[in-house]
């Protein structure tokens, strides 16, 4: 269970007033949820992701994973960035087995017979994952720059999942892909989530995608005078049939309209905090 407890992120700016990025955000992420974090560009959703990732620390508040304070990226989290997601100097298979190797072998342990044996086992497991992603074994010998964008992201997901992290963090992972590939990837990630039941936090600026994929949508918007983002809506998405309406409503909400009543029929109950619109 991942808890974000009243975090604020503020950057001091030389000679100016400090820049507030996040103000007082709290979030509970339960195991098995698929959370979409959506909002306009620059509203702090990537910052929120980085807090959960551990590569940034909040100026106030804290992030805990299963009760322990989380302040450094480690094996608890998996990460799929928008670009530079694979190591260019390793083949696809080497990229995927990297996490498995790191768990068991130190810097100089790689020249032992034990390593060679385990390496075969790792490779087999990696091939399994690749096949599950829709790639072939032949792709395993290629280098990342020989793959298309979509294939690279598939490998990246396989790479992140192979170590069984508690949560998979995807930072605009599909935003750089063309629409056709994007749809494929969306189907893929839902399928994987359904099968494995892992927890996913998915950041995107595309509302349609957010509502389509997530079981829960967290909407961030800059709503206070200081310009920090707050959770302005956090609601569960029950059914795909209603996603269109919800999507349209969310868009109107972003532009400041009061649509809470509209949404009330579509979203489940008490998760809705008191609407904070433009105060």
């Amino acid at each position, binding site marked *: 269970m991942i808890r974000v407890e009243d975090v604020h992120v503020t950057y001091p700016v030389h000679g100016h007033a400090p820049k507030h990025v996040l103000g007082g955000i709290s979030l509970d992420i339960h195991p098995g949820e698929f959370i979409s974090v959506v909002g306009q560009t620059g509203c702090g959703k990537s910052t929120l992701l980085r807090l959960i*990732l*551990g*590569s940034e620390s909040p100026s106030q508040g804290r992030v805990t994973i299963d009760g322990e304070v989380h302040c*450094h*990226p*480690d*094996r608890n*989290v*998996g*990460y799929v*960035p928008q*670009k*530079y*997601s694979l*190591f*260019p*100097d*390793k083949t696809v298979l080497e990229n995927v087995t*990297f*996490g498995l190797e*790191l*768990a068991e072998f*130190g*810097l100089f342990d790689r020249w032992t017979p034990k390593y060679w044996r385990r390496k075969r086992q790792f490779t087999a497991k990696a091939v399994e994952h690749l096949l599950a992603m829709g790639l072939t074994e032949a792709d395993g010998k290629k*280098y990342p*720059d020989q793959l298309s964008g979509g294939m690279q992201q598939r490998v990246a997901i396989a*790479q*992140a999942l192979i*170590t069984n*992290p508690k949560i998979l963090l995807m930072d605009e992972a599909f935003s750089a892909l063309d629409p056709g590939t994007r749809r494929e990837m969306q189907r893929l990630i839902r399928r994987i989530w359904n099968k494995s039941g892992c927890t996913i936090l998915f950041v995107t600026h595309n509302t349609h995608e957010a509502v389509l994929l997530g079981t829960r949508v967290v909407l961030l918007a800059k709503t206070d005078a200081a310009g920090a983002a707050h959770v302005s809506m956090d609601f569960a998405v029950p059914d795909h049939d209603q996603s269109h309406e919800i999507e349209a409503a969310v868009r109107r909400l972003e532009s400041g309209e009061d649509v809470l009543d509209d949404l009330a029929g579509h979203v489940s109950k008490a998760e809705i905090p008191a609407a904070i619109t433009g105060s």
Partner: protein
Amino acid sequence: MDLFAINARPSRTCAIALSWFLFVAGVCAYMWVAQQRHKENPEDRVVPTISQMGQGLYEAAFGADEEASKDSLPHRFLNSMLWQDTVASGKRFLWAMLLLIPAVVLGLHVGMFPFFGAFFLRFILFFDKIIALSVLPILFIAFGIDELSKVMLIVIGVTPTIILDTVNLSRSVPKEQIVKGFTLGAGDFAIAYRVVLKQIMPRILNSIRLNLKAVMLFLFAGEMIASTDGLAYRIALLRRNMGMSTILPYVLWVALLLFLVDFAMRVLNRRMHPWFRE
């Protein structure tokens, strides 16, 4: 024919002809000057003719005395002045190249680990500005006048550049990959060596290639100042009696060697890092 057209596509023959033109022009100009000078003074030694240079090269590479001419050609070459000078200089060159390895490692640490960076970077930036040749007296005191001081002169001259290059290269690895490494369970050393260093290695090799000329420069400076053998030593000695007919072939020989080393490094880089595209 617009010479300044950016979209111009010279034909292959045209491009080849153009690129050889300056060489041919240079050689012709040289031969003309040599001829003029020799007309005025048949014993001129400042601008040797091509045949004189050929003679000089032959004598340096295969020995001039009659005794030697009884030997086989390869054997003569191995005993020749040219080869022995090459070996002497070559040894110093190789030692200096080996000492670049710790430089790269230091650069990596300074780039990746902030404590190292805080401790070393300012000093290295300062040290980089010191012109190594001007501190020769200190060099002699610290390292003597034999092989060590010559190798150290090269190292002091070239290492700061390599270190700073490595620092920049290691910092240019995208942050996403470093974070990714952590999420996969890598420790700090694993990130530095298995993620960062592996990625930047081909660029580091290219950087070293670019600095080969500087290495040669310092090597020559050291040999000209105090030495018992070596290519630059020979050139310094030949200056005393204007032996340009041997000096010029030596200069061309050094250029050839440098070209070969650069070529070898390029090939090595490509074989070690087939994934690198630049």
